[in-house]
């Protein structure tokens, strides 16, 4: 017994040491997340249960779900939520359709310019969203690049209304999100052995069947990662809808900002923020489950 204990002593001590090291390594990040993310969320949630006195623009301590009820019973806000979800789904789908072929080419290319290709995909991420939106403003304006070119070529007589429309917002968000989709897909496609595609072809599968039966299921982890990233980014887009959508187009993030800063209605702003977070999380989880179940079949 004693011998066994002595024999196991160093092993137990080593494990304890590893545990302590792991704890020490985990602690800074955990403390940071707790302070920087969870604490504000808890405070915000508490605020969302408070009341607001519009005449004095004051928050009053209370415990009520009135702000949440107000959101779901006012068509103005539910329409904005629906618009946000619709745009996020559309943008994600377009990014997937545009991103998959591009990611495939980048993953499979043997070119010596492969690194350049990857850098050119990542390059837009070096510029902030608002700066990119400002660039789009120059392109989309009534006398911007698109309209000036088309009018200069005599193709149109009056300028297209692109700026401050939903179209501009969709194009802007796709441009922001596409690199995330391509990078997520490219890394997964690269890990799929080219031999499995060739095996499918050698067994007589046409390209579409090979894609549907081999490539798509194997690339599904990348598809999931890409769509999750894209969807969450689109749901929470702020700068692009604010700058390109103009005063008449509304998505959730600018509305939350407006409630906090212009109306100083922190309780309602907090409630909308939590609703946006909950809807985004729920839709992401549901979509994941559906996709995974389909893949398992």
């Amino acid at each position, binding site marked *: 017994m004693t011998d066994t204990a002595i024999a196991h002593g160093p092993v137990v001590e080593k494990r304890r040491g590893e545990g302590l090291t792991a704890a020490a390594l985990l602690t800074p990040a955990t403390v940071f997340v707790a302070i920087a993310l969870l604490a504000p969320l808890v405070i915000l949630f508490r605020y969302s249960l408070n009341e607001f006195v519009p*005449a004095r*623009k*004051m928050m009053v301590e209370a415990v009520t779900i009135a702000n949440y009820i107000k959101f779901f019973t006012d068509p*103005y806000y539910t329409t904005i939520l629906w618009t946000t979800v619709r745009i996020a789904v559309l943008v994600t789908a377009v990014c997937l359709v545009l991103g998959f072929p591009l990611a495939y080419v980048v993953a499979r290319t043997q070119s010596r310019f492969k690194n350049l290709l990857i850098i050119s995909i990542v390059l837009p991420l070096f510029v902030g969203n608002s700066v990119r939106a400002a660039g789009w403003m120059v392109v989309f304006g009534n006398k911007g690049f698109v309209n000036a070119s088309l009018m200069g070529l005599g193709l149109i007589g009056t300028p297209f209304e692109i700026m401050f429309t939903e179209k501009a917002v969709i194009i802007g968000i796709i441009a922001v999100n596409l690199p995330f989709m391509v990078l997520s897909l490219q890394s997964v496609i690269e890990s799929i052995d080219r031999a499995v595609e060739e095996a499918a072809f050698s067994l007589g599968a046409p390209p579409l069947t090979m894609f549907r039966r081999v490539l798509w299921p194997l690339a599904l982890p990348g598809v999931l990662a890409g769509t999750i990233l894209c969807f969450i980014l689109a749901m929470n887009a702020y700068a692009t809808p604010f700058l390109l959508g103009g005063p008449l187009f509304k998505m959730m993030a600018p509305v939350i900002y*407006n409630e906090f800063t212009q109306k100083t209605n922190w309780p309602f702003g907090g409630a909308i923020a939590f609703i946006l977070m909950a809807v985004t999380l729920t839709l992401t989880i549901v979509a994941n489950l559906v996709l995974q179940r389909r893949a398992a079949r």
Partner: protein
Amino acid sequence: MSKTFMINRRTALGGAAALAAGTFTAGAARPAGAQDNKRIVIGTWGGDYSRLLTKNINTPLLAPAKWECVNAEENADPRKAKMMAERTLRRGTSDVQGFSANDMYDLNEQGLAEQLDYSKMPNAKNLIPAMKYPYGIGHIYSGKVVLYNPDMMEAPSGFADTLDPKHGNKLGIIDIQRQYNMVAAALASGGSVSNFEPGKDRLMACRKAGARIYPSNEAFAQALKTGEIACGIMWKARAVQWQNAGIKVQTVAPKEGVPMYVSGFVMPKNAPNKEGAYAWLDAMMAPSAQELFAVDMGYNPTVANAKVPDDVQKRIGFTPEEQKRLVDLDYAYMSKNDVAFQDWWNKSFKG
């Protein structure tokens, strides 16, 4: 080898922790105010306003007295939100904050603005009485006038003639000027600065006729420049700036009245450097600073001893007849109904 690595890693972690603790305790031992008592933090809009504060006040008037001025640039709404968030702090992060008169009123109502001791500011004796608030000081003022492109239309006579569905999509409305658009529509429709309700139908009719809504003053200016719109409502000072920038625009002081726009500064109750804040506010009222702001930005001085060149005065000021039509806003009414008006503007007018 492995043991050495473990020790090194621990040492590194321990060192990092010690460094962080050292930084924290050093920071705690030296509060910002103790080391920065010559620093004045000025909350202001960005762009021209901030640049001109530095050019006309900070550099020529405060730097020689060894004050270090820092402009904290942001739009008014985020700065208001920040002041509210800092409400419970003993020491805030700014010493003076620039706002419109109705925002200053709002902040005072919420108990965030210091009640000013005018005896600490020698230049205050020249301040126009209407610009002297217990909780803030008017820095510059202008009036809300009609702007139009003389190549595209005849000069309108006032707000009713401008906020008229007959202009269709040639009428531009600035989203962030919501309150002033509502005042103008009210004055055009038999309402007053204390009753915006009569103007709502007029605004809705304009919107239905195709009036364009722009997110910012700059977007409105761009639309005027390209001929996308022919008329709208804006401060006279901005029209002067845009004329200087080559935009073809003329102004009309509306017959229904000229709503005043006052931009001023408050001192947050928890300003960390109140002595510096008083020094800055006093410098803001210096005639030299006020004269330069009139020339550079097209706004009227708020002190009686500022001497604006005649040609500038002619462009930025108002004739004695027009001055009689200047109307100050009912800040209490606007503050009390602001949230309701925002809801109407967002849901009904823009919705």
